[in-house]
């Protein structure tokens, strides 16, 4: 029993020696490992995305315009106003002409005179 204990104690002395002086890697080895690490490291995300995909200049233009005027709702409003204006210009409601008529007389030629449209212009030219 005592012999066995002594053997164990002896072995412990060796283990203690091993724990107190672990094998140390050389600085060359550490430098090589770090060099590998840097060589194999994926590039940072910011560097990889330094070249964004190209967009067409027309799309850029409309995107910029849309941003400037407030998005697609503004485009829809603009389109409605344009169509309404065109329709009024082509076929004005009677109520729109009458006030001018009452001021300038029943003869619509007076209206054209007032706005210097010329002799050949007549609102009725555009009607059906």
């Amino acid at each position, binding site marked *: 029993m005592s012999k066995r204990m002594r053997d164990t104690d*002896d*072995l412990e002395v060796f283990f203690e020696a*091993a724990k107190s*002086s672990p094998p140390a*890697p050389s600085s060359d080895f550490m430098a090589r490992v770090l060099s*590998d*690490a840097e060589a194999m490291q*994926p590039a940072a995300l910011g560097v990889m995305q330094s070249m964004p995909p190209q967009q067409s200049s027309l799309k850029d233009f409309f995107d910029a315009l849309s941003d400037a005027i407030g998005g697609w709702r503004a485009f829809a409003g603009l389109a409605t106003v344009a169509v309404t204006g065109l329709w009024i210009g082509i076929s004005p409601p009677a109520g729109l002409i009458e006030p001018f008529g009452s001021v300038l007389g029943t003869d619509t030629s007076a209206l054209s005179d007032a706005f210097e449209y010329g002799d050949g212009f007549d609102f009725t030219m555009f009607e059906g």
Partner: protein
Amino acid sequence: MALDDLSDVSDDTLLQLYANGDQSAARSLTLRLAPRAYNQAYRMLGLQADAEDVAQDAMMRVWKIAPEWRTGEAKVTTWLYRVVANLCTDRLRKARATSLDAIDEPMDPSPSAADDMQTNARNDALQAALMDLPARQREAVVLRHIEESPNPQIAERMEISVETVESLTSRGKRALTQILKGRKSALGFEGDAP
């Protein structure tokens, strides 16, 4: 200057940072894991040059797997331990195949260690004796008695049962005792024992 500025960061997180291009993570992982891999390889192989080759190879695998590493599935150190162990086993197998004499011959303590400090002499003698053990016994003894890992952790790392760990360490210690007995006088043990 702190050698490891990210000492509080987990290994998993460091791997993620490394994969995202963080250069300080590369440095921290190297400082943290490379000595560990080298230490294990040296205990298994007994030669500095071989241990450095294996440890560098194992670390290369760390760098390669970093972008695919799944946090929380396994411990980085456990995974690295298995990589180093497998690389050492392969190397020992190849060495045995090419030269039976080389693997059977125990290492001599280095002359400088024998001259300088008794501790170094004992350390070298232990390493030489460890090299005489079968690889699995050596691995278990190093983990249990030098790394001081608990048996369940050793079982996990070596992928064996706790009972097998106990058996390996017990047989390993008996064999080490026999091997080292013959070197007591050279290591200054004559006056130590009562």
